[in-house]
């Protein structure tokens, strides 16, 4: 008989109890590249909140600043009741956020851009600063006695990813940055291998997304390098590897929460005019997951929400 595969569906499972607020439309607009696992979790959080709160969710994404701005403009054209937007490229968002304000559409910022959120007129911020997350990783590595990490960026020029590595580098100046072509795992694998062959003294490899970290792990194992692996973000496999001690830790931004809270914000507004965060950024991370607490997380990672 076959093993693995799709878990056989079992009956039951609670359907969310309905809310009584009128149906509204909320747009969540990110700078995600298509098919990014991190943003998939953000989106799932947003979807769950929308389903629960009787909200029509419009999720769109564009990695380019100008393109993302046009998506925001389109949401304004569609007269949505609220917009949640990532501010990875705040300059590009300035004009359209002003347009949103003029159209009386409330905006919240998620994921990135805590510093500029208020200035651009976002009413709240839900996210974790990539730089702070990067510094957390750097600190943790420093504490563990690592001195020569390699930070693997799978998309050159991506603001969030560059910030993460910059954060690490701020703590450990000897950090080396390696660019790999994220669209092709075989190239990720072989380029990490070649970097390890070239830098024998490297003692840690940091992946900036769960799938890339797992590939880095394989490369490290294959080359027989002594480098340890650290990561950003989570998925079930990664959590398992932490549990197995193959990966030392990861920094989780809890992306599910970012999506969830962003949508929830508009419902709370509708329901009782609540102001989440009270004008202060609501941080969803960084939460460090290591062997000590991985058991608590693993189950949720398998569910696809961590």
């Amino acid at each position, binding site marked *: 008989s076959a093993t693995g595969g799709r878990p056989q569906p079992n009956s039951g499972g609670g359907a969310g109890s309905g809310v009584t607020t009128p149906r509204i439309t909320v747009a969540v607009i990110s700078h995600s590249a298509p098919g990014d696992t991190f943003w998939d979790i953000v989106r799932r959080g947003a979807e769950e909140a929308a389903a629960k709160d009787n909200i029509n969710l419009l999720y769109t994404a564009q990695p*380019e600043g100008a393109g993302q*701005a046009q998506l925001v403009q389109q949401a304004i*054209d569609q007269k949505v009741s609220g917009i949640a937007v990532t501010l990875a490229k705040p300059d590009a968002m300035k004009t359209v956020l002003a347009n949103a304000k003029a159209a009386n559409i409330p905006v919240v910022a998620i994921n990135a851009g805590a510093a500029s959120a208020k200035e651009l007129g976002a009413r709240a911020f839900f996210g974790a600063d990539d730089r702070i997350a990067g510094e957390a990783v750097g600190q943790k590595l420093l504490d563990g006695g690592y001195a020569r990490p390699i930070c693997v960026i799978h998309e050159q020029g991506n603001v969030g990813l560059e910030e993460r590595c910059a954060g690490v580098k701020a703590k450990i100046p000897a950090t080396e940055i390696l660019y790999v072509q994220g669209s092709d795992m075989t190239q990720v694998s072989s380029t990490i291998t070649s970097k390890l062959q070239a830098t024998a003294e490297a003692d840690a490899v940091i992946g900036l997304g769960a799938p890339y970290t797992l590939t880095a792990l394989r490369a490290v194992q294959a080359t027989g390098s002594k480098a340890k692996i650290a990561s950003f973000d989570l998925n079930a496999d990664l959590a398992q590897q932490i549990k197995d001690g193959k990966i030392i830790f990861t920094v989780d931004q809890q992306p599910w929460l970012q999506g969830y809270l962003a949508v929830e914000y508009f419902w709370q507004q509708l329901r009782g005019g609540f102001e989440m965060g009270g004008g202060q950024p609501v941080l969803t991370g960084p939460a460090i997951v290591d062997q000590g607490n991985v058991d608590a997380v693993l189950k949720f990672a398998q569910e696809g929400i961590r």
Partner: protein
Amino acid sequence: MSALANAADERVRPRNGLQQFLGRPEIGSVVGAIVVFLFFAAVAPVFLQPASFATVLYGASTIGIMAVGVSLLMIGGEFDLSTGVAVISSALTASLFSWFFVFNVWVGVGLALLVSLGIGMLNGWILTKTKLPSFIVTLATFLMLTGLNLGLTRLVGGSVASPGISDMDGFALAKSIFAATVPIAGVEVQITVFFWIALVAVASWILLRTRVGNWIFAVGGDAAAARAVGVPVAKTKIGLFMGVGFCGWILGMHNLFAFGAVQSGEGVGNEFLYIIAAVIGGCLLTGGYGSAIGGAIGAFIFGMANKGIVYAQWNPDWFKFFLGLMLLLATLVNLVVRRRAERK
């Protein structure tokens, strides 16, 4: 031998006005555009609002501006893979230069123009000197510019984004030129739409009514034959690359002044949008055939499909799928219209 004599030629079947009209090369893509338009107007009512339409136009114009230069280049038988990043290079030049030397931004704008034209000239020069295919040459410039954008921005500005220059001398004026909006019927229309229209008009004029236009068709259609009858092939090609550079400069300046800063890693991949627009609009990849207006319609179809899917609120997972389907259908409509017209 007058037109009258020809009309009465017994070797030609008479065509009525409609058939003649449908036989024009652009009409196919126009019909394609109309079909896409009607489709989205039906599935997404918001698409018809003037404000939405202005957004669609804006989206189309940022592709369309470059598609003008790229169409001409493609008619001239060449290919440019460096356009996407060259736009960003231009914007980065202007902002980094003005910022670093604390000059009036117009100095940077002028320098950016020189750099943009220079990149085009370099592409063209290497191409004509080495006779390497333009795919290779511009691929190399593409890679080099990508590296330069990232490397220099980090070197000069210390970050992956260019430093903000919105508080610098001349910024306000430049913004009011390159990133203005023009109110039309109560809707703010981005100035890029007008740049786009102007560029299409100028390019069409050049193509159809000047000697250079004749040469462009000739070098793309058969460079050896063109050379044999005395067309300056190398100069024409270099000029075409510089024309692309000019379009890139306009778009780069818009990007810079609309947003105040530029991400050094952006632009990669956009070169294909421009090529796609040109090809949808009927330019032959192999050169020698096409029109500037066709490229504009291509950009418009692409822009409509791109934005229309969002307005239609379809599941974004399938965005690309629908985009591909739209594209195929639009070009098929184009084809069918043209074939039917020819058969008549």
